């Protein structure tokens, strides 16, 4: 397969470090390793042996592109990411279409939905361009699971389509998030996915979740990827020329590295079939 495609991989978790360092992509390791930069802020050198073995993509959760006002927190974080990028030379850097902190300085610690207005579109596009310029790397933005839509904003797919065009960035399409949003908010993910700017998809996330006692689907990253999520890959034909990698995310019930790599391999097989 030609183009930017580098294969499928997994998210780095410290519990798998020794196993990852004992392998390479050609000896049972993942084809690509996704790294969350803040895992290495305190010890950047620990990233080097991983980067020697695997193509790396960076995936951050704390840039909070949407937060208006002072950018000192993001700039400090970007300085650290740039240091790590010099070590790992990642294929791309991504973060979420989300808010994790307020301009006044309250840290939510996790992803909150953005009020998808014209003003937010302009702000986030500026931020994405600035990040790409500073890091000199391709940047991608990811769709999140939405607890609710904030009234008065654009639909997510329209917002992302306009954003990637305006910022010239890529889309990290999380198919599990899209599917969970469909289940929780009553739409068909297989149909809705075509509203997204699929020609801009540079990376795909796959993960498994569960339905809680309140019958709400949770993006827990704690179970194997469901067949229905894998099936959504079939809808991404428009991403053939842009997709770089598919990453399987798992945060809990990590299990053996080999099992996760097998999931990634299965995803790659479906994509390249």
């Amino acid at each position, binding site marked *: 397969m030609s183009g930017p495609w580098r294969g499928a991989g997994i998210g780095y978790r410290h519990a798998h470090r020794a196993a990852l360092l004992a392998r390479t992509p050609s000896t049972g390791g993942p084809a690509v390793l996704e790294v969350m930069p803040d895992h290495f802020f305190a010890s950047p050198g620990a990233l080097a042996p991983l980067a020697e073995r695997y193509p790396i993509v960076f995936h951050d959760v704390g840039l909070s592109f949407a937060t208006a006002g002072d950018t000192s927190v993001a700039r400090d974080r970007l300085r650290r990411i740039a240091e790590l990028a010099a070590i790992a030379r990642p294929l791309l850097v991504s973060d979420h279409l989300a808010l994790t902190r307020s301009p006044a300085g309250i840290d939510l610690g996790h992803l909150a939905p953005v009020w998808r207005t014209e003003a937010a579109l302009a702000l986030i596009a500026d931020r994405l361009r600035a990040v790409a310029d500073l890091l000199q790397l391709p940047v991608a933005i990811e769709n999140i699971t939405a607890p609710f839509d*904030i009234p008065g904003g654009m639909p997510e797919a329209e917002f992302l389509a306009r954003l990637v065009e305006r910022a010239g960035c890529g889309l990290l399409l999380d198919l599990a998030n899209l599917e969970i949003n469909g289940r929780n908010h009553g739409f068909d993910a297989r149909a809705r996915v075509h509203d997204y700017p699929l020609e801009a998809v540079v990376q795909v996330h796959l993960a498994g979740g569960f339905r809680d006692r309140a019958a709400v689907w949770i993006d827990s990253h704690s179970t194997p990827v469901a067949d229905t999520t894998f099936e959504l890959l079939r809808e991404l034909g428009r991403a053939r020329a842009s997709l770089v990698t598919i990453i399987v995310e798992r945060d809990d019930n990590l299990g053996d590295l080999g099992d996760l790599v097998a999931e990634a391999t299965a995803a790659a097989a479906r994509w390249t079939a």
Partner: protein
Amino acid sequence: MQAFQDAFVAIVADAALRRRFRVEPDAVLDGFALDADARAALRGIPLDELERFARSLVAKRWHEVARIVPLTARVAPSLGERYRAWVAEHPAPVSLALLSPGAAEARRALPALHAALAADDAEARYAADLLAYEVIRATGGELRARYDLDAIAHEVARGLLSVDPEPAPRVYRFGRST
């Protein structure tokens, strides 16, 4: 946009403000310089879904903290509830710490949780010290403890709960591990 985000995040992060928003939303929103669109957007968020979202964020944070203090969580199963109650009233400030999110949050919560465990006679006498031991072991620093926490931690990790250990003062010094 700035005022909208300040109001939205404050309501999500602060349980007391959220309770007030439920009964007198206009009074809460008057505390922020919102235009009519931003005000309408915030008023339009379903309250039950807002509450569920806020609780889910707290649950995720506890999950991260629990990874730092697994032994204390085993000795003091109330710790999760204590943390959730505390953080709901104490929104986190933005931090530039090099610690992992769970370690940074465990460090922030340590004084309050330590005091709560130490003051509760129903908890193991060493629970508060064990909490400090796990947090400082992960984040670095010095701990003056009343018990031999290396031995207690070893036993708890093996599934044994020390019932009434003899005091054995120790000083522990840890480098950062997260």
